[in-house]
């Protein structure tokens, strides 16, 4: 009897649930999973921006070219040349015929206009169109600035386009401070230079009277830390970029100070100090006193803060070979994060906080690589005779570094590479250049 009741209950349960399940099965649409796609530049078109005032004609052309160069330079976009365009954008306010752009396989279309008002102020407005969606991608924007800021205006437009399509942060409107080098190797002259991220607008911050090394931008981009040999030994200086007035930052009698880097707050500086043959890491506030973060007989140097300022990654040979370590920003116990073959150095924390870029020497070659902050997923992005000194773009997507060619006449140059390892490019500089440091995104 009990068995019969139990069976009846089970039957009722099954009968109740089955109708719910079967319609779902009947509703099953055709379902496919795609795990492989293609990796190729996204084709875009950017007809020359309309010049709304006569004096804006040249500016409109220049701005259009800078935007196109920015996008193409990422390796993620490919420009469909104007000679292939079917439709003509005669006016910024005229409607866009999407079929004409689909026909030539344009996926993103950028239209814009430039005007110069009576006070000389340049205005740029633009729209980004998703051609295959038949509508705009985001809203149109308008930017303004002096005529001398035309390149910055173009970079900002390109930043908007880049971010809307890729989802990454912007980085075109940024600068790079670097060491300009001249002369033979045994009498090399070095001076600090600063330029747009793409190598344009080079200006020099120092002359060639003394050796300068390792410049680093502040988080706000208005100051630069660097190491100078003006007194015969390396010392750390800070310069207000707008005033070109250097100021010695550290007073360390009988010691050498070098490898400085700002903390995220812009008021803290972490650096290395070598005294009596031993090198340790120190931290100081600008105008304040220094305190020692490491205290070992080995060499600790190249410190770099995490974006939140809570940790510091640095290199040390305490294990007998140069490796990467992470410690609290207040010092204390450090944990090793690099365990691969070879030697690791010059670690730099990504602005996004997820990766650490480094230089690796192994098998007679140098590499620029990235790894997660726990040391996992190490990936080598480059390999050459001498690659070193990585620096991150403001969005954490691109790395710039120094590459020196082999031989007696080898010269250092600046290169950039996407963190995927693709799009390795040389950054144009007037002569030899080394030690790049990327600024934050300009305000």
């Amino acid at each position, binding site marked *: 009897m009990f068995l019969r009741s139990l*069976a009846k209950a089970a039957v009722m349960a099954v009968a109740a649930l089955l109708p719910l399940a079967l319609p779902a099965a009947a509703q099953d649409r055709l379902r496919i999973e795609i*795990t492989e796609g293609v990796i190729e530049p996204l084709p875009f078109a950017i007809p020359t921006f309309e010049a709304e005032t006569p004096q804006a004609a040249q500016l409109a052309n220049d701005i259009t070219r800078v935007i196109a160069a920015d996008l193409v330079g990422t390796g993620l976009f490919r420009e469909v040349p104007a000679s292939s365009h079917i439709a003509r954008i005669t006016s910024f306010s005229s409607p866009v015929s999407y079929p004409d752009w689909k026909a030539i396989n344009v996926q993103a279309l950028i239209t814009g206009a430039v005007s110069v008002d009576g006070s000389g102020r340049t205005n740029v407005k633009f729209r980004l169109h998703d051609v295959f969606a038949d509508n705009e991608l985001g809203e149109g924007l308008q930017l303004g600035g002096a005529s001398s800021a035309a390149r910055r205006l173009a970079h900002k437009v390109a930043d908007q386009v880049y971010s809307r399509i890729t989802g990454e942060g912007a980085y075109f409107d940024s600068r790079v401070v670097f060491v300009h080098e001249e002369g033979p190797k045994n009498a090399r002259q070095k001076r600090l230079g600063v330029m747009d991220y793409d190598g344009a607008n080079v200006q*020099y911050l120092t002359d060639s009277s003394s050796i300068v090394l390792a410049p680093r931008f502040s988080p706000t981009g208005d100051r630069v830390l660097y190491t100078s040999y003006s007194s015969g030994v390396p010392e750390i200086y800070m310069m207000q970029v707008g005033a070109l007035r250097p100021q010695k930052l550290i007073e360390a009698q009988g010691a050498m100070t070098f490898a400085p880097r700002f903390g995220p707050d812009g008021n803290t500086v972490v650096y290395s100090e070598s005294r009596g043959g031993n090198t340790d890491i120190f931290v100081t506030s600008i105008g304040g006193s220094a305190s020692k973060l490491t205290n070992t007989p080995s060499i600790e140097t190249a410190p770099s803060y995490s974006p939140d300022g809570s940790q510091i990654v640095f290199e040390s040979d305490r294990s007998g070979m140069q490796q990467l370590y992470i410690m609290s920003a207040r010092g204390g116990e450090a944990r090793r994060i690099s365990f691969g073959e070879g030697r690791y150095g010059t670690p730099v924390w990504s602005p996004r906080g997820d990766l650490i870029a480094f230089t690796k020497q192994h098998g007679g070659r140098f590499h620029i690589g990235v790894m997660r902050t726990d040391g996992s997923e190490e990936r080598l992005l480059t390999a050459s005779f001498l690659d070193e000194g990585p620096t991150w773009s403001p969005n954490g997507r691109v790395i710039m570094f120094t590459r020196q060619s082999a031989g007696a006449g080898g010269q250092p140059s600046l290169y950039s590479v996407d963190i995927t390892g693709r799009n390795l490019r040389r950054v144009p500089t007037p002569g030899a250049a080394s030690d790049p440091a990327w600024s934050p995104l300009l305000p």
Partner: protein
Amino acid sequence: MNTGVKISGLAHIGLLLWMAIGGLFSFDRDQPLEVSEVTLITGEQFAAMLAAGSQAPAVSAAPETPAQPEQAEQLETPVPEAAPEQATPPEAVEEVQPETEPQVEEAFETPRAELSPVAPPAPVAPDTPEGASPVLAPENPPAPDAAPRVAPRPVERPEPDANVAEQVQQAARREQAPEAPPVPEAPEETTAPEEAGTVIETEATDEAGGTAQSELAPPGAPRPLRRPDRPTPPAPAPAAEPEPARDPLADAIAGAVAEATASAPAEAAGQGTARTGPPLSAGEKDALRLGVQRCWNVGSLSTDALRTTITVYFEMDQTARPVSGTIRMLDSEGGSAAAANQAFEAARRAIIRCGVSGYGLPPEKYDQWREVEVVFNPDYMRVR
């Protein structure tokens, strides 16, 4: 012998003895040897050397300045190579002097650029007839005669007539079931080669490979013949054995299942979601998958979007072209909302771009592929 001869003889004998015993001919082995290396030169080289030596080198009054140290190679030694053995400590700079000379820019000014959130007025929408179908392929596409080829490898210009299209359509109907309903005639331009391709032709997406796979998808595998019936054994003697006991629980469950399955199709049909017609073969599903994936370009996706798996729903018309207005994201997993949106835009572009000419699915199975869900999983692409 006289005295003189004797004296001379004794003197000679004494001299010989002293030479032999006194060590005049002994050889000191410990004395170091001085060896000078010489080089044989010709008379012309000697003359040239004399000529060069006649020019007196300029004597520098100041001692040679040691070369300034090179930039420290940080991997070799983190300590800069800047004369650490210098005895005198560096003097503190009493007054910081600007290192810049007049040739350095007097001031480093960054030009200002302001971003205004004011959007320019939107242009008037293109003239499209009200109520027009949102199907992507236009009824009358613009004449593509003058369209320059974007891809590096141009496609040959098609023949003006549609003879080629007829053949392609016939080939596509080969596996059409004889009892299938009448198939609507596809527009001729949908099967003719395009003037400008919708695929970026690179080595990664070879035209021959991608198109051939989608258009020449293998037909469904032939079903194996039914296994022949086993010979029926001779019937046992009737009523020789007792009837096996029936399991009441199994009977009850089987009855309930039969009742439920009998009523379920009716309910499903009431919702209008039942699929009719022959099912899609694996080859036809693969053709659709390959058709979409050859346009799924993840090269411009952010690293966050490359960690996001999304599920996209869309509908297709009877020519197997996606209806753009129906494309929507059903689900996302693994990334932020912004990353999911970026991933969705890339997926939508892929569905639309490669669906412009239709995905070549069998019309008689339209009910099977009218609605599609596509899962875009970039895990594999992220590590490539």
